[in-house]
């Protein structure tokens, strides 16, 4: 298990990649963000974006998925998040883009009342051109390493 104590400030965690399909863009947008440049390829071509783009909330979901999968690979004892400092959608995400996730540990501090610790992380998705498309700074909670009985 990877506990709160095992994270170091400055540590970079590679989260893996996902290639987003047009079907995924359309399915998410039709359910949650039905604006023409997310749901209608023809209307999107005529929009300021010049083609279909993914909902920003969809890209955040993809970043979450890569984080959850990375936590599972590392057996990290994540217990949720109280919130986020900021999220910026920096560039459009288009069908066929391959998005690679990356996390940097910015700060760590222990809970005073519970056997958990907090980690402030900067999470990014980077496309195949090396451009950051979304950046999220947020707080994640992890379990503390259990004390070894004497």
């Amino acid at each position: 298990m990877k506990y709160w104590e095992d994270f170091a400030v400055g540590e970079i965690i590679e989260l893996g990649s996902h290639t987003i399909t047009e079907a995924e863009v359309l399915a998410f947008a039709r359910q949650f963000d039905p604006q023409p440049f997310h749901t209608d390829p023809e209307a999107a071509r005529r929009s300021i974006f010049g083609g279909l783009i993914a909902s920003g909330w969809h890209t955040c979901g993809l970043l979450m998925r890569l984080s959850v999968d990375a936590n599972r690979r590392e057996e990290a004892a994540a217990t949720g998040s109280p919130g986020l400092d900021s999220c910026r959608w920096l560039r459009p995400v288009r069908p066929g883009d391959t998005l690679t996730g990356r996390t940097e540990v910015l700060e760590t501090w222990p809970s005073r009342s519970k056997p958990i610790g907090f980690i402030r992380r900067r999470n990014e998705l980077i496309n195949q051109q090396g451009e950051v498309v979304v950046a999220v700074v947020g707080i994640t909670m992890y379990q503390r390493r259990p004390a070894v009985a004497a």
Partner: protein
Amino acid sequence: MKYFEQVGDVMRFGRYEVTRDEIIEYARQFDPQPFHLDEEAAKASMFGGLIASGWHTGAMFIRMVVEHMTPVHATTGAMGFDDLKWLKPVRPGDVLSVESEIREKIESRSRPDRGTVKIESRISNQRGEVVMSLVSLVIYLRR
């Protein structure tokens, strides 16, 4: 249409019924943690039952915004958001709605035809408890 100059009132809108199936479907795709996916595992967790992914609550929020605000506001998208808080669990059967309030208006220096509006939104359940809040950075066209 409401332009940059015209937004200012408190807005209350939306009604989103949260279902068990949708919580599990979202979690399978984006947030496969046991307390979002599996009722039995969720019962044994610190949440005491199935809860929606926080990002799913965000997706429900944007659905309500797109249905109620986007058609009547001259917006061209959002740059992102600040200070998002997940305050209470969202559970199957909850009915969510939104209250939004303008916090700040910033005229663009480079693009005189638009400006950024900071909008604080509180998403509440049927008991009036705020489950999530955030400050969106929305780009509005000027009149």
